[in-house]
């Protein structure tokens, strides 16, 4: 199986490669459109800021490439947010694969820390991405912006309010948490993604 990780100007890309290696799966990190197009599975990771990431993707026409992909695609963290319609992070128009909007967490009297950093539960799990994953499993999150709940929601998490911790539409999947850092639960989710039919 040919697995490609999209390389762009965001952090954490290497961690996804290492996570796949831990599972005994080889992958290629590249921004070469032909290689991404030819992959059986595409992972679109990332930690960073939305507008600079979108600008980078546009410069290289990777924005059009990603939306046109037909094989299973998994966006992680910023990758998932960029697959949404719009991000409030510097008012950024995103790829528009998912209908959901990305908004900023607003600290409250009870929850004063933004971004959210740490382990939180995922619930209302839907689709094959969560095969064998129990409701209320813990995954690792680091994010200051979140996707609202909508038709694409396949997992929810509570932090300040309920939001989408995973999204799905056709061949596209996105997770807000970091499966590559989420212990056995994360490994199961990555395996499930790799098992999806191309």
């Amino acid at each position, binding site marked *: 199986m040919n697995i490609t990780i999209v390389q762009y100007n965001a*952090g*954490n890309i*290497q*961690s996804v490669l*290492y*996570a796949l*290696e*831990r599972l005994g799966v080889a992958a290629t990190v590249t921004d070469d459109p032909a290689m991404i197009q030819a992959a059986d599975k595409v992972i679109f990771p990332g*930690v*960073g*800021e939305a507008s600079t990431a979108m600008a980078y993707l546009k410069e290289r026409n990777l924005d059009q490439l990603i939306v046109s992909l037909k094989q299973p695609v998994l966006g992680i963290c910023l990758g998932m947010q960029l697959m949404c319609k719009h991000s409030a992070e510097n008012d950024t128009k995103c790829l528009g694969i998912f209908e959901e909007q990305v908004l900023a967490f607003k*600290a409250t009297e009870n929850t*004063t*820390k*933004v*971004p*959210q*950093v*740490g*382990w*939180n*539960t995922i619930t209302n799990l839907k689709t094959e991405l969560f095969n064998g994953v129990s409701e209320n499993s*813990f995954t*690792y*999150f*680091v994010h200051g912006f979140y996707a609202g709940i909508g038709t694409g929601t396949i997992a929810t998490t*509570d*932090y300040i309010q309920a939001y989408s911790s995973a999204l799905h539409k056709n061949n596209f999947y996105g997770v807000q948490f*970091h499966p*590559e*850092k*989420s*212990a*056995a639960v*994360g*490994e199961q989710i990555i395996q499930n993604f790799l098992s999806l039919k191309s």
Partner: protein
Amino acid sequence: MLTKRIIPCLDIKNGRTVKGVNFEQIRDAGDPIELAALYASQGADELVFLDITATVEQRKTLSALVHKIAHRINIPFTVGGGIKTEEDVRVLLQNGADKISINTAAFLDPLTISRFAKQFGSQCIVLAIDAKCESDNNWYVYLNGGRTKTDKLVVDWAREAVDLGVGEILLTSMNHDGTKQGFALDITAQLSENLPVPIIASGGGGTEAHFLDVFTKGKADAALAASVFHYKEIAIPDLKQYLSQNGIAVRI
């Protein structure tokens, strides 16, 4: 619900764990990867590797070690010790570290923080503060592994560093470190209640009740300890069970 984190800390010198460890289950108690893997399997939420190696040559051993850790460990880990330049950070992140921690270099040149945050993102920049409560009842920042006193108040430095872009603060109380008499609850709570970033409390954890206190009274987001885990005085699964029974949200 976001859970409180339990973080074992491993001191590293020349690629090996220092401070004693006491585990029969692992083949080589000096091998940080073996120990880290054991903690991860027991339910540690995150790991911190603190390099106390001095020379540039030996730091290459560190990046090789980080690379090996990243290929074995499936939870987040932070690497700290002697980090000064963007290149230091880049090498560690490239080799698989999730976060880096900075201390003295950031204090001597605070703009280091904003440069690192801009280039790598606040989420991977942890500020370590070595704090000591003096006879005037104020908490002061210490540098160089606690050898050098400064006139800066911990609350002031922490605020300044958050404004410059650190994503988390690892607060070690020198008064409590090694005593096993409990964490510094007052200063931990003071930082946690006034800053928008997670506070990792360190120094003094000796019993399960100390960890409960640091989460309830100390308002910490995470608690870090070394020897109580290395010497099996506290087992992570038991600690988490105890915290859960006492109403603390933890990952079990």
